């Protein structure tokens, strides 16, 4: 056990833990952040995804010691000033989830995709999202929601001004 300092959703926490513990268990059990889910523990499904330094990171295979000091964002940290992120709102508008258990991974990966590529093609969406699994098979709705969110984000960006072709 040793002290580790984590920055999550803008808050700083110092924890006395085994530093090799996967970040997922620290988030869920010690910090009460249960947006990220356990799906496989193997980095194969994406349920546990968090965002670190702009990258979608699978917290189930990430030792906590590897992210000390980094700013970590979980699903609970996406909303700003009580307003949902456009990706989250698109998920509601498209009524994406069935059971919803995987949707943390879908939303977090979609958010990173649109941060990096604000106007992805269908092929780019498929490729980027391909390793984020859903057993209710909501892929079609997810892809529609990503396109919807891309439009909303583009419309809100002052410099953009151009209509996004989905």
């Amino acid at each position: 056990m040793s002290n580790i300092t984590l920055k999550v959703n803008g808050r700083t926490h110092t924890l006395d833990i085994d530093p090799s513990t996967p970040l997922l268990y620290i988030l869920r059990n010690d910090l009460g952040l249960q947006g990220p889910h356990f799906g496989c523990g193997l980095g194969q499904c994406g349920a546990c995804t968090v965002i670190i330094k702009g990258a979608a990171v699978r917290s189930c295979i990430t030792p906590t010691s590897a992210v000390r000091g980094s700013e970590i964002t979980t699903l609970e940290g996406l909303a700003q000033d009580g307003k949902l992120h456009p990706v989250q709102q698109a998920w509601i508008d498209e009524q994406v989830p069935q059971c919803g258990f995987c949707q943390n991974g879908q939303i977090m990966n979609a958010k990173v995709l649109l941060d990096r590529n604000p106007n992805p093609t269908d092929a780019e969406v498929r490729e980027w999202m391909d390793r984020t699994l859903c057993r209710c098979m909501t892929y079609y709705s997810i892809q529609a929601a990503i396109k919807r969110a891309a439009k909303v984000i583009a419309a809100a960006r002052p410099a953009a001004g151009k209509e996004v072709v989905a």
Partner: protein
Amino acid sequence: MTAFTNIPKQVEEVMEKWNGKTSRRNFLKGSGLLVVSFSAGAMGGASLLSSSASAQGPAVAQAAGPYPDPDFKQLDSWIVIHADSTATFYVGKTDGGQGTGTAFRQMMSEELDIAFDKTSLIMGATDITVDQGGSGGSDAIEVDGWPMRRVAAEARRVLLELASARFGAPVDQLVVSEGVISVKADPAKKASYGELIGGKRFNITLTGNNINATTGVAKLKAVQEHKIVGQSPQRYDIPAKVDGSLKWAVDAKAPGMVHARNVRPPVAGAKLVSIDESSVRGIPGFIKVVSKGNYVAVVCEREEQAIRASRQLKVNWQKPATPSFPTSENLFEYMRTATPTSVVQSRTQTPDVMGNPDAALASAAKVVEAEYDFPFQGHTAFGPAHAMADPSDGQMTIWSNDMKAYGLRTGVAEFLGMPRDRVRVIWQEGPQLYGRTAADDAGFEAAYLAKEIGRPVRVQWMRHEETAWDVKGPAFAFNLRGGLDAQGNVVALEYKARTADYNHIGYNEPNTVLIAQLMGRRPKGPAPGGAANPAELYVIPNRRRTSEVVAMPLVWESPLRVGNLRDPNGPQITFAAESFFDELAAAAKADPVEFRLRHLTASTDDGEEFLRARSIAVVKAAAAAYGWDNRPSPKPLGTGKILTGRGFSYCYRSETLVAEIAEVEVNRETGHVWVKRLVCAHDCGLVINPEGLRRVIQGNLLHGLSRVLHEEVQFDTEKVTSVDWLTHPTLTHADAPARIDIVLVNGDPNPNRPDLPPYGAGEAACKPTGAAVANAIFDATGVRIRRAPLRAKRVLEALQAARV
């Protein structure tokens, strides 16, 4: 008792709103609305059963545990009207993510005549919601919706009576609008539901011999009067699922809670010889190794410690002397040569033998024969099994995503030898169910370990454990023969199916869940298993249908334990039956849709006219939505790398009709199949929430697609070898069709046929997808692939063998 820290948010809110001092259970108890039942065994064998009926006498009440059953014959058990004119509905169901909770609220709001957004819903908490059995069989709307509607209509009737007395006006002189009753002639005289009864009990006794028959005396609204049913309010559960605020069953916590992980036998049928506890004693937070029979678990203070201990624990196992099963490659040969354990009795209305199939086949102008194979497939739930149990104060509370929470409660009580009224289950959302959580292995394990440890215990299966040891959909091997006359009409059809469905496990049975099997508990004998016939209504004068069950060599403690996986035989049977019907169409050089319609419209007097007429309607609707052009399959072989084709398939499930079309691209160099477009025409009678229904159908279509393209349980002779998402692959984003068209034949919301009741929609559309895809591959390539899944390797080998 432990202060429960994880009551579902919506339950907590309702309890606070309802009464700051009195719990829901105390409310029901105060009015004698709880039915107390006893387990004679747990009460020392004393025969209390004869005096049990209700908690009236003080002696009986003293003996009662804390969680008696809510009485479904009391209106107050179903509906509470609050002082602010909002209402809470309590139903004995669970929502597996298909939006049934929203549909329940719509149906009950409709009959109560209250705005949808003034209502809330509690499901699946066994001590405060009546027992409707939880989820299963696509019956949420079709069966369980009826008592919900009737009790809501009864509540409206009582409220009208109260208003009548208050205003001195007869009921027929009153009008109701969104929870406010006014006098027609004098609209200033009005009272809200809250003013009439808010916070008070209805004290109305309902009738009905069972919960499905529960009713008052009020009549239901005619479909033409519906204002909320048939609309598409957004699902109330979705916002909390996208902002991270929902408390799922995986999130359950209680003070003092510890973490457990199972240690499974390394090969099927292995016997525990010894455990070297010293191998894990040094792990920080280690509490205990718990074992009984062949069941082994480790318990630690923290989750990561339990994971480490489960990996590190040294256990000496003895392998069985003989193979537990054939390899997955040899499965179908084994199934075809094994001696059947039973012949399945048909449950369909039509007889299994019609006419003289042998004579008709012997004299047919053309005979087509084929073998089809469909493998074991896992549920492979996205989140492995999990539950948390709190054993404090001689009671047991289990937080679970068990779709049949009520069955879990009864099963655990029997498993642990506790009175039922000391056990409760609080259902919370979880990963998709589809039958997996009808046998809630983790719920039983958590309760057992909690009792052993004396502290709240959370059990979480790991991925390899879930994928290897979950409940499997049974494999099928089919032998089919069909005869055509000179005009290309099917004159004979012989269907023989064998299914590896022996020892099909039941719902939360205390002697068939995995922990019970591993501990050596056994029911009197294995369940015989079952099957179904192809669900089509083609008019064929000579038929024979036979289904036989075969057993694997290892019957108990097997990772190939079979149970209900969405439908649970339809995807397998429809893959074979509707692929083969396409083979017959091709042999007759007929268009697949025209061929089907020809055999649906032929003359017969089998009494299935209505279902057949609706079958014809969905077949035509799917063809129209796709833009189907009439021609036989296969089409002339293309010259490029990508070959395209379209395939058709149809079936029914109970009273729900489905027709589907798949359009595929087949890469002739790699064998990769992409289903570019799916069309589904769907008739499930009255639609409660069209947008919700469309998404349920979409999930069904793609689940069927995943099963036919990717999924297969693989095993050697001693263990399952497909244990994660690489070895048991599933559909991915790259597989998603570019376009999905869903036609609700019954309309939005059914303006043309108000006579139809609602039927189930949770499973039907997953059945025909596999055959539609296989038929499309045949159309594109001229190659018929008769074994699922249609992975690229298998498709490529078939193309190469046919020199495509």
